[in-house]
């Protein structure tokens, strides 16, 4: 299969210059790579939230579950538990995943469910035309905060390392080949993978110059990705508000049993529910 076959005929409605195009491009290449390496296309599923990022569900020709705002991860978890053979990807927005559905993000990390989450972090509500999100910088002047937001952003990379995500990385929509590699690695990881992606929002919060000037690569060969302390230090280098250098790359990876593996261990082999019911009723008589 060629990766161009993975694009549906749905009309694309992202703004010119939107970082989502790069993410779409990288994702389709990774999916094509998975299929080339032997994963049947039908075993791949994409769950999306609601926001500009969510349109990925319409644009990629893979199984998809275009869910509701903030709720990608419980849907993804349900899919994975129902069929552990599925490769489950989720594309969420920063408002979607750090605002409306934050609880699910923390619990997906805590559970170590084998799902790969990409957060399209444009640091703004795109689809609802420009309000601040949990990762907008202090003082961000959006449509709901014209005088500037009075809140500090939180740092999702730091948060996810602390919450127990077993794979944590950060990419940028203008660093395509790195982004592709990060998605590939995140999908390859067995367990919950959290990939924060700086996605340029050309219309409501164009940070292209800022990112271009400040990002640098954590060198994959030299950075100790198995050290949570080093990962946290790197994550804290930039707090999403003050000016500083911004590391990109893979911050952390650890191997633990996944939720579905632990559940499979507990699951009884018996598949005769009628027999179990009859026994139970006999015990009660």
């Amino acid at each position: 299969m060629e990766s161009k076959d993975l694009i549906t005929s749905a009309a694309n409605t992202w703004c010119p210059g939107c970082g989502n195009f790069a993410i779409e491009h990288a994702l389709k290449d990774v999916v094509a790579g998975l299929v080339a390496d032997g994963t049947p296309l039908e075993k791949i599923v994409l769950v999306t939230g609601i926001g500009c990022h969510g349109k990925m569900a319409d644009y990629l020709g893979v199984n998809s579950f275009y869910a509701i705002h903030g709720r990608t991860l419980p849907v993804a978890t349900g899919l994975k538990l129902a069929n552990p053979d599925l490769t489950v990807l989720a594309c969420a927005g920063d408002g979607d995943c750090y605002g409306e559905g934050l609880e699910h993000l923390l619990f997906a990390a805590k559970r170590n469910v084998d799902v790969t989450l990409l957060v399209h972090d444009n640091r703004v509500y795109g689809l609802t035309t420009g309000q601040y999100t949990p990762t907008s910088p202090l003082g961000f002047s959006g449509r709901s905060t014209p005088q500037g937001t009075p809140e500090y952003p939180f740092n999702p990379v730091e948060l996810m390392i602390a919450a127990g995500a077993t794979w944590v990385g950060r990419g940028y929509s203008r660093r395509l080949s790195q982004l592709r590699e990060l998605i590939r690695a995140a999908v390859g990881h067995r367990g919950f993978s959290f990939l924060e992606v700086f996605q340029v929002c050309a219309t409501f919060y164009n940070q292209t110059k800022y990112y271009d000037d400040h990002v640098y690569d954590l060198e994959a060969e030299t950075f100790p990705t198995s050290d949570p302390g080093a990962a946290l230090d790197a994550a804290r280098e930039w707090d999403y508000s003050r000016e500083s250098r911004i590391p990109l790359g893979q911050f952390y990876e650890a191997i633990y049993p996944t939720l579905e593996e632990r559940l499979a261990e507990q699951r009884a082999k018996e598949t005769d529910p009628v027999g179990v019911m009859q026994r139970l009723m006999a015990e009660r008589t």
Partner: protein
Amino acid sequence: MQEFSVLIGGRAGEGINKASAILNHLMARLGRYVYMYYDYPSLIRGGHNFAVVRSAGRPVWTHRDRVDVILALDQKTVDQHLSELAEGGVVVYDTSAVKQAEGIGVDLDAIVREEKAPVITRNSGLVGAFCRVAGIPWEVVDGVFREEVPPKYLDANLRVVRRAWDAVEERGRIERGPMKPLPVLTGNEAIALGLVKGGLDAYIAYPMTPTSNILHFLAGFAGSSALTVVHPESEIAVILMALGAAAAGKRAAVGTSGGGFCLMTEALSLAGQAELPVAIVLGQRPGPSTGLPTYSCQTELLFARHAGQGEFPRLVVAPADADEAYLWSARALDLAWRFQVPAIVLADKTLCEGGYSCSFDPATEVVAPPEPPGDVPRDPYLRYRVTANGVSPMLSIGTPGAVVKVNSYEHDEAGITIEDPETTVAMQEKRLRKGAALAEALAAYETVAVYGGTDARVGVVSWGSTVGAVREAAAGLPVRVIQPIVLEPFPVEAFRRAVDGLDRVVVVEENQTGQLEQLMRVHGFSAGARVHRFDGRPFTVEEMAARLAEVV
């Protein structure tokens, strides 16, 4: 044969629930039909808990004003319930905890101490004393304890039971009933087994009275079956996980009460739009808000029917007892899948936590055999293909050769987001056609139960657990009892047949605003009188009879 009621009371934490399960089992073993009412406040230690176990030679569905025996583990049980003791009744009590009482005392404190048994076994001791007083043969007592108490604790329990048994004298003999013993299940257990019968693959829930025990029961059941049971972070996560599982082809059910159902409504609407099957057990308890968490009501009929934005078909069924709870939970899950709609099993605390003799056989088929989807075109696969009855052939995510697109936005047949008016109308109409098809399929079932009163001029309509009390109170009156079991889609034709020939209809429900009556009115049926109750407690037979006498 003679009815018999025994009330056991004590402080929360003293094992009233377990003692009542043993009493149920004892009465069942004597061949009697059983109903158990369990009353407890929302706290873990100290408050007053009590249970009434009523049994007879015919089915019973609620308790009476009077009991024949009071078993008191504390003074409050005597103080609060003595006025309910029938003439000639007796109080059996723990002399170490009850200082003011007349009746038969046993010093359970001393027995437990001397037997070096855990203090919690006082409940078993009191049941043991009761069994002797009521003339229940020792072999029956011994046998039931052996089945009810886990091996680890059995010895200590049996020692205490025997000591208490020996300490008192027989006062009479409970008659044996006519039946071979039937299992006594709570409504929650029956719902759980019904879901399993309906093909349940996964049960997902966040604890909330009165349905928490479905979660506990199925979590135990999963130890010996292929069922997956998950308790996630919130009811929002609960239902979305269930919908994710459904998209991958697994039958999932969730359980909650009003508050949790509020959190589920956005995803209920998603199930409507994305056409994902899910069974939702909604156990009613009095609100608004936290209300009376451990008591009962029937206040969510209209909520269940209307919850969620947009217009989409759903199934709402309200069983009255454990047999119906089993049957209709199985059918709810089955119909959810056949019509790709959410299905709500509307229960209430009385049903969920009450005990009922059950006569269903898990081996008997209760749903139509599944229709295989046949040859479904996959190139492309149209998840939302427009069909005559609105039901699109469903392939799950993961099916070879198919790309399955599930969507919460309005979408075309392939599941791609659209906004044009023509497709919008076609898809909305397609979904609502499923509601009509569902109503048609339901016609094969008894959607409205009718009891007695073929020549009656007066009908008494009720729903859910309240029906049992109505049936008992109406026995001997010239009335016809009518119970719509399916509440959405409302079984208009079956209901019309049920009220045929009546001059007057009385509606009985446990809410203040008459929700079933409102629903009837929408379908052109009016009521001449109504009986409402909304103090959280179910009707006793006598209370119901008195209220019916005012209006019939």
